[in-house]
């Protein structure tokens, strides 16, 4: 693996330097950003991890030194939010997290990127910003129409089963509806010491599809009417359902599972079902580390009484407004999301690219067929559906992060038996209203 990596790096350094005109003239003498230290921070996920492996290529090309920081999702968001809010210069490149994108962009904490893209000295002509899915660029665009982030992932929440053989043994099919899911889980829970269901504790992401499926929603009518609707009867029913999944069929400590733990649990075959983005699910197809690769099956999130509403998410790379190395930062973003780099990632098994050219490519489609399941098609279908129904509007709201955290706590409370669904959601509702008011939102 390391050898291959070194070869890839060497080859790509040679190849890329020929293809990137911006650096061609710098090859002769001093490198363009010699002596510059770039601080890049994003949360730990598949694409950033791949980028970390490719960093030497960038450093060789530009002479810049990259400090790469990738903490967990909640820690990253908290640190980035803090740093951005003070317009600090500690980071040059940050991840524009999907639930925070509206908050960060519309508060003026990020740098508009249009000028960098249009500048031929900084961006080669064939870099093609329009190659990125319009649906992926939309959340990265501010109210002023300018682009503030370049997306590196467009993912959808999908359902996965690591031990589908157990489901088949019980004579059942892949669950389609929420009722089916419970039936299947009851049949397979604890068989061969495999717990039934787990999901990552970011319930503001993993629970909302179920909230929608039962007919509830986060706000009354985002983005215009932001009055939270967390304690409606539909929401309560959804929360009860979801929390009972965790309580009855979850492994020990289910409510503390991080996305990586979930992926690990499925790879090792300790837990059967989960809902996760293909960002994580694609890793289950890694033959080297996945013990359950032969018994995997994927599907869409279950349909509820009100329909099927898969969650979608877009993350992008952006430049904080306080950064002191904006050109170098743009060089990094431009390299990290160039066609060459994204294609390399896709070839390495990366599951949720944001470039149309990658999504349509043969290599991507081939790699994403895992154990006979076409993960890419499932994801695309979900993303199509989301853009049609518009049910993801709730998270483009700048005050969503606060509500997101209330949802996290509420589901944790219900699943651990500390409160009934009604109590927990009423509490979440009341606190969300307080927080929205505190954030200056008029309700």
């Amino acid at each position, binding site marked *: 693996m390391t050898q291959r990596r070194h070869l890839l790096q060497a080859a790509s350094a040679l190849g890329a330097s020929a293809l990137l005109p911006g650096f061609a003239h710098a090859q002769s003498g001093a490198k363009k950003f010699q002596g510059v230290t770039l601080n890049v921070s994003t949360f730990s996920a598949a694409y950033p991890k791949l980028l970390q492996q490719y960093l030497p290529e960038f450093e060789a090309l530009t002479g810049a030194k990259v400090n790469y920081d990738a903490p967990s999702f909640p820690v990253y968001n*908290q640190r980035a939010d803090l740093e951005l809010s003070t317009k600090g210069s500690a980071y040059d490149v940050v991840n524009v997290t999907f639930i925070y994108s509206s908050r960060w962009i519309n508060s003026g904490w990020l740098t508009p990127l249009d000028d960098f893209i249009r500048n031929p000295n900084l961006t080669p002509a064939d870099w093609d910003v329009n190659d990125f899915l319009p649906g992926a660029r939309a959340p990265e665009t501010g109210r002023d129409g300018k682009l503030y982030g370049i997306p590196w992932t467009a993912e959808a929440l999908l359902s996965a089963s690591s031990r589908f053989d157990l489901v088949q043994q019980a004579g059942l099919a892949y669950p389609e509806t929420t009722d089916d899911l419970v039936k299947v889980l009851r049949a397979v829970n604890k068989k061969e010491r495999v717990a039934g269901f787990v999901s990552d504790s970011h319930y503001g992401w993993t629970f909302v599809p179920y909230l929608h499926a039962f007919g509830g929603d986060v706000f009354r009518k985002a983005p215009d009417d932001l009055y939270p609707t967390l304690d409606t009867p539909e929401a309560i029913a959804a929360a009860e359902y979801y929390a009972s999944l965790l309580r009855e069929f979850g492994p020990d*400590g289910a409510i503390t599972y991080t996305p990586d733990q979930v992926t690990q649990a499925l790879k090792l075959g300790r837990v059967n079902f989960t809902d996760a983005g293909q960002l994580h699910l694609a890793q289950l197809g890694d033959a080297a580390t996945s013990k359950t690769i032969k018994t995997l099956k994927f599907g869409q999130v279950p349909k509820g009484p009100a329909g099927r509403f898969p969650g979608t998410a877009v993350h992008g790379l952006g430049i904080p407004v306080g950064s002191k190395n904006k050109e170098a930062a743009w060089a990094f973003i431009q390299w990290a999301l160039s066609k060459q780099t994204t294609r390399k990632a896709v070839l390495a098994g990366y599951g949720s690219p944001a470039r149309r050219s990658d999504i349509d490519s043969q290599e991507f489609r081939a790699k994403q067929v895992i154990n006979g399941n076409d993960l890419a098609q499932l994801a695309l279908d979900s993303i199509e559906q989301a853009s049609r129904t518009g049910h993801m509007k709730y998270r483009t709201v700048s005050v969503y992060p606060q509500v997101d955290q209330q949802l996290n706590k509420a589901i944790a409370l219900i699943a*651990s038996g*500390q409160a009934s669904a009604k109590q927990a959601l009423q*509490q979440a509702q009341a606190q969300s209203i307080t927080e929205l008011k505190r*954030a200056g939102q008029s309700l």
Partner: protein
Amino acid sequence: MSTTLILHPGTGWEAARRRAFLWGLLPSLAVLLAITLVPAAALLVASFTLLSLTDAAGTFRFDDPLVNYRHLLEDERFLRSIATQLKLSASSVALQLAVGLALALLLNGRSKLLGATRTAFLIPMVLPPIVVALIWKILYTPDVSPVHRALEAVGLPVRSLIANPDTALWAISLADTWQWFPFTMLMVLAALQMVPDEPLEAASLDGANRWQLFRYIVFPHIRPVLVVCGLFRLIDSFKAFPLIYVLTDGGPGTVTEVTNYYGFIQAFNFSYWGYASAIAMVILAGVFALSWLVGRLGWNDHDKR
């Protein structure tokens, strides 16, 4: 014999000495003022506003100075955090006192072995708190914990303590006790040294057994130390952070969210600086009151002798 000099006002040389001392003292006073009183004042000022960095200029207003404090009274999560804090502090201080006292009594001997073990027992207290948190994170994670696996091997599988709302706070209390019992142990050991020999000799010659010796002679002597120790640990317990940050993140739910942690979340998750300042002021007030109490008791202890 006094270790201070009696200064005669007016004498040229004495005045020069006083000036010299003042010069020695001033840098410290200036620095302490700058880094403690000024920030405290800034904190107080901020607590009267709804300062939030999404709109710094707009929210730095004093229209309603007590708005944050009013919110605090209505904020259930804050009130619960105080209850949680008290629960955690009470349980861990009580445990620390008990364990520290017991160990001090056991190790109060003169062999080299006991001396070495006394030094070894200091380790938990001086470890960086984050390392303590990591140690207990490993012990409380069923997948890798030797304790969990041993229990499972003998047929008594135990579910994760930190993911269970009923046991999460106790789990933290236990880790906190492990970290800080050496403090009590040390202070009690030092106090045990001061217990005069004569009453002990006399009583044991009269036939008193060890328990009676302890109860009627030793304990009264060390009781003031135990009180001061307990208060010290109580105040320090308000600062509890790394354990909660690493082990439970305030959860499950908010069952291990203490006031300090709640303040941290308010300040650093969404930059509600004004509100967080108000929370910090409340904690400071509590710390101040308790410190004053400690100061009184500590000083009184000295005066009695």
